[in-house]
């Protein structure tokens, strides 16, 4: 559905997006992560044919970005929620949506039906005749999402749709995205929220001007492999630590009454370590194995590229 090949954008001397090559399948939710200034918004703007590319190429639904006919075709089949929602504050919620429906040549009945459906799903139907300017941030964000959907686009671009939202509104928006996923819409989601990406995305890409990695959330976690064993003891002492040091465990650290080390195969390695601790007189309370989280992966990649 979305294919980019060495897509690059430069603003003067500054390279905002560097040779981005990625592929998003039909009906997939793609999470685009990256620090501030990584080029996420710039990428969305190029894909929505809002700004030109400097080099490389990209197709959306088979149409090429960067030429006039392709751009027009692409703009017909996408919906965009920009990072600044950009509602007409002096129009009612209903009129904001109705105007966009008319732009896409939706019939009157179709507009009425879609407006009602989306405003009800997002809990804004009661407020349809209020001016958008009187809405709270969260309500505006939801209204902007409804606006992007008014013509039933096949592809939806969301630029940080849950930024600035309270946990409850963020949850409504996330659930709404999952609802759209059920309807087989292709969703390109810029976000800073790793937890959100992990929960709702089929595939994740981490960008820092260059694309650092793509894959399913599970793939990414496994890519960094490293699991950790955390052993909690009654008390940690030198004797226990020196016993463990003999085992040449990786990244052995102790803090308070906890000892942590890296393992690649916990089933095999933990047993020996625990035995050594017990033989050295340690009272082992609990043994936990934790995988590296998406956050670890993210931080590692972003720091590496900094």
């Amino acid at each position, binding site marked *: 559905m979305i294919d980019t090949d060495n897509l690059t954008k430069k603003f003067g001397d500054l390279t905002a997006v560097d040779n981005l090559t990625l592929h998003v399948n039909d009906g997939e939710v793609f999470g685009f992560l990256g620090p501030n200034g990584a080029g996420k918004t710039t990428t969305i703007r190029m894909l929505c044919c*809002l700004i030109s590319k400097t080099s490389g190429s990209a197709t959306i639904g088979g149409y090429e970005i960067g030429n006039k006919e392709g751009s027009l075709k692409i703009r017909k089949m996408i919906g*965009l929620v920009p990072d600044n929602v*950009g509602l007409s504050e002096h129009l009612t919620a209903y009129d904001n949506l109705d*105007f966009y429906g*008319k*732009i896409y040549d939706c019939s009157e009945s179709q507009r009425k039906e879609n407006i009602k459906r989306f405003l009800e799903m997002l809990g804004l139907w009661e407020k349809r005749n209020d001016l958008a300017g009187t809405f709270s941030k969260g309500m505006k964000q939801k209204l902007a999402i409804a606006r992007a959907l008014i013509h039933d686009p096949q592809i939806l671009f969301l630029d940080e749709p849950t930024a600035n939202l309270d946990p409850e509104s963020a949850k409504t928006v996330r659930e709404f995205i999952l609802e759209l996923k059920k309807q087989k819409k292709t969703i390109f989601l810029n976000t800073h929220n790793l937890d959100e990406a992990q929960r709702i995305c089929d595939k994740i890409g981490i960008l820092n001007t260059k694309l650092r990695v793509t894959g399913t959330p599970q793939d990414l976690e496994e890519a960094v492999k490293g699991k950790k064993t955390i052993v909690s003891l009654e008390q940690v002492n030198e004797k226990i630590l020196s016993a463990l040091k003999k085992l040449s465990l990786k990244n052995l650290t102790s803090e308070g009454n906890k000892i942590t080390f890296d393992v690649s195969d916990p089933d095999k390695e933990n047993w020996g370590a625990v035995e050594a601790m017990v033989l050295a007189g340690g009272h082992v309370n609990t043994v936990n194995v934790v995988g590296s989280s998406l956050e670890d992966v993210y931080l590692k990649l972003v720091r590496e590229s900094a």
Partner: protein
Amino acid sequence: MRLSKAWLVASRDFKIFRRQKNILYSIIVFPVITSVLFPAILEFTQQRSGGLSAPGVLPNLLNSFSFFFIIGAAYIPLGIASYSIVGEKIEKSLEPLLATPLTDGEILLGKALSAVLPTLVAMYAASIVFMVGIDATTVGKLGYNYFPNSTFGVLLLILLPVAVVMSVLYSVIVSSRANDVRSANSYGILILFPLLATYLLSEVGIISLDINGLLIIAGILLAIDIALYFVSKAAFQREEILTKWK
């Protein structure tokens, strides 16, 4: 370029203007002044001296009054266009609009129409009130109804639209560079100076505001319109709007 789409953009603006008192005022004030004040001045001076508006001087005076319609027609769009474009900038509402299948030209034309049409309606309505008012106060002196006449016809139907278009295009350009309505307006006002200068030159007799004079001015403004059209079109492009507009 689909006119219906430009009309869509303009009608959304009209809906917004209806909720904006200052826009409504800025549309109404000038026409009210020109259409009511001038007949009132004439009436007043006639009652006091009876001399200022002797039949011989009267037509010249009336032609000078008429030229204020051009200044008014150039003034009104400044407020509307700068509001509607800078307003969108402040609301950041151009980005989602630009992501739709509307073309830049359709959006620009819509924005222009939303400034041109209210101006024309207001100025033409004012001109009717003006003509009736002036005729009522001068028919006794002149012995005939001065308005309507072909000079005012040329002024209203040829010069006025060209002046409105000039002002609208100029506003678009100024608005693309301005961050708030006030600064857009203060730069916008500059477009009135050449018109005021024209008026003063006619007062001292260097140029004449008869039909020929008006047509020459219209020709000059038309040339300016064409130049401004290309500049505004260059300023009103997706990429330009999203990356260079502040």
